[in-house]
């Protein structure tokens, strides 16, 4: 139910690239430069001028998001730059926790106090569209010369509800494989060559265990145990829902296998027992664990810790196929009484402008949504973190149907019960699936499948 709450990050807004091409920040800035070049090239023709705004004074816009981590100051920096470059428009950004954001947005919009522009996660987009909060954006997508080929298919498709586009993808935030390289070296593992398949991963965990380190702490909480479990279910060949999105599929053998692997890690001592919220990533920071599967948004958090030796890769393949959980931030324009045509025009200008800065946005710890930005030669040349984007074709996203969060919440309950050893994985998943099936059926009635 609650949305990504990245561990507190030390923001570095406006961080300038260092001359050393090897530093992490240097990489990100480089990524920024690459993305900027690519997006500007892609969009140079379609940038509308804020002509509608110059008529009478300044057009005020409000922009809500949940960027409470290291990404917030980066977005604020973008907003400030937009305001400086556009005389006729003044955008005010408000940041709140995602959970508050989702609770407040509908009420604020109905009372006319809501934002003109907002960010939605891929999995909340269809719900918001179904509840009539959003404006269709097909014309803006055309202005931006967005094409399906430039985006990961599910991200592109998720923005479409009932035949109209409601979201402009800003970024993709996948799960990555974070390592504490000092701990790895201490256990005799090669920090430059982290284990990438099941056999070597388990061997590494055994080696760590022999050294007294519980190598990979399995979080029983949504963040990031929930994303780890979803990735594993997909890796073992399973899926969250059946093809129609009508019933939960996670209780099938593949899902049981995935969750059992996490629970076995606890039994075998590869993971600590009773892992608290955020304790998995904190253990990695403290040198109490070697591995953690966490969101790309953790890059800034780890980067801010002096003396920490860490690295990040694409997720290793534990199951039979490569797969990694990912979310996506999307720009939306809200449907609200009292919004003037000038404001709409200015909002489109803003979304268009920020969308072209996806490079600068990558500094906040995100991967640009555009394939062209990711696949450029310069990006590929940037060693370690290109790894996270390397799995772009293997990324899997939450199913995009209205009210999906209600059903996935049941999976998180099963995860919590199983990893805390309250229930057997098969039983926990089956119980959760039965509850989710009812929720899905209810939601079909409500939102009209």
């Amino acid at each position, binding site marked *: *139910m609650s949305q990504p709450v990245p561990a507190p990050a030390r923001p570095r807004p406006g961080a300038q690239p260092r001359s050393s091409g090897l530093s992490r920040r240097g990489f990100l800035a480089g990524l920024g430069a690459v993305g900027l070049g690519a997006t500007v090239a892609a969009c140079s023709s379609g940038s509308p001028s804020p002509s509608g705004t110059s008529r009478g004074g300044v057009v005020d816009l409000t922009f809500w998001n949940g960027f409470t981590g290291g990404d917030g100051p980066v977005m604020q920096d973008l907003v400030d730059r937009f305001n400086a470059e556009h005389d006729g428009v003044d955008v005010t950004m408000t940041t709140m926790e995602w959970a508050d954001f*989702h*609770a407040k947005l*509908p009420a604020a919009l*109905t009372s006319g106090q809501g934002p003109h522009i907002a960010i939605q996660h891929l999995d909340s987009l269809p719900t918001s569209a179904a*509840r*009539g*909060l959003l404006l269709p954006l097909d014309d803006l997508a055309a202005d931006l010369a967005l094409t399906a080929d430039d985006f990961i298919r599910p991200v592109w498709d998720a923005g479409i509800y009932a035949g109209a586009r409601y979201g402009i993808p800003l970024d993709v935030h996948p799960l990555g494989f974070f390592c504490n390289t000092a701990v790895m070296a201490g256990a005799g593992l090669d920090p430059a060559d982290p284990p990438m398949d099941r056999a070597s991963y388990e061997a590494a965990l055994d080696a760590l265990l022999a050294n007294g380190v519980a190598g990979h*702490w399995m979080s*029983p*909480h*949504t963040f990031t145990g929930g994303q780890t479990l979803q990735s594993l279910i997909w890796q073992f060949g399973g899926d969250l829902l059946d093809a129609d999105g009508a019933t939960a599929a996670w209780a099938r053998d593949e899902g049981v296998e995935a969750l059992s692997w996490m629970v076995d890690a606890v039994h075998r001592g590869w993971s*600590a*027992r*009773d*892992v*608290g*919220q955020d*304790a998995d990533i*904190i*253990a990695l920071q*403290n040198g*109490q664990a070697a591995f953690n599967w966490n969101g790309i948004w953790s890059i800034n958090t780890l980067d801010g810790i002096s003396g920490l030796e860490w690295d990040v890769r694409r997720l290793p393949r534990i199951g039979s196929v490569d797969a990694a959980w990912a979310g996506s931030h999307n720009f939306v324009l809200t449907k609200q009484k009292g919004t003037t045509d000038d404001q709409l025009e200015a909002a489109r200008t803003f979304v268009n402008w920020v969308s072209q800065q996806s490079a600068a946005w990558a500094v906040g710890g995100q991967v640009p949504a555009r394939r062209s930005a990711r696949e450029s030669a310069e990006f590929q040349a940037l060693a370690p973190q290109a790894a996270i984007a390397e799995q772009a074709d293997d990324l899997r996203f939450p199913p995009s149907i209205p*009210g999906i*969060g*209600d059903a996935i*919440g049941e999976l998180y*309950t099963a995860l*919590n*019960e199983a990893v*805390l*050893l*309250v*229930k057997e994985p098969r039983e926990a998943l089956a119980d959760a699936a039965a*509850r989710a099936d*009812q*929720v899905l059926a*209810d939601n079909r009635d*409500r939102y009209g499948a």
Partner: protein
Amino acid sequence: MSAALPTPRRPLRRGAWWTPWAFLAPFALVFGTFVALPAVRGLWMSLHDWDYLMPSKPFVGLGNYADLFDSTSVVFQRFWDGMAATGIFVVASVPFLLTLPLLLAMALNRRFPARTFVRAVVFLPYVLGVAVVGVLFRFVLDPNLGVLNHLLGLTRLDRVLHALGAGDPVPWLTAQPWTWVSLVGVTVWWTLGFNTIIYLAGLQDVPRELYDAAQVDGASPAQRFRHVTLPGLRPVLAFVLTMTFLASANMFGQSDLMTSGGPGTSTRTALMVILDTGLGQYRMGSAAAMGYLLSIGLGLVSIASFWALRERGGGGRRRGARARRRAAGGAS
């Protein structure tokens, strides 16, 4: 005014019939806007499948209530699990929140150096917000990284807990019954000060001479507590019991922040279920029905507690005591 005084036989001005209403109006306005109207609207909502953004809000009569009693419905298990969790918390926390503050208040009612300072310290945690308390204790109590388990390990006190059946590390936030121990412990630490202050005020209101009289009659300290302090505190006790019961039944933030309702859903309280149903899943009609069921339950228990602690014909005696004290105060 002074000019009017000499005029004889002028009837006392009582004001128009609407005078009391005029004085009540400011409060009635606030109460009506923020309590009465929403309550009535909530009742109306609970009779519909209500999502204020959806174009159709079908009338379902008592369907939302019937679902709460239908064991095959989606909400049945969630709601009653939440009610059970709330019940456990109330039963576990209220006795501590009634007795510990009373003992503390009696200690703080004595004269000793730095008394005011200690009183302030006891009250201090209460001024913290639930967010501060929740996040603070999430880290203090973290089984693997928390300072509490670290200190227990240093002092070897963790062996006592292991002997009691606690796992290693002691799973303060991740396994039962330790999660309830933590939630109750944190809540007691947090809200102890409020009840203590109320008790303290009550104790200071018990006439000194009753204690003196009891002492003259040869009453032991235990008898003085039983026959003077407790009867003197009866109205205060009724207030503290009711307020504590309601506060415990409305527990939300501690669970939400420290355990997220886990392990499993064992600490997901009724309020968390209602919030998630209404604002997470947008089933506001169902959430309103749950809210009404919960408040009816709480109302009944509150009435029962007030009734149990009502003054049984002792009011006259108490008023007499007050009058005597006032007289004594005037004479000295």
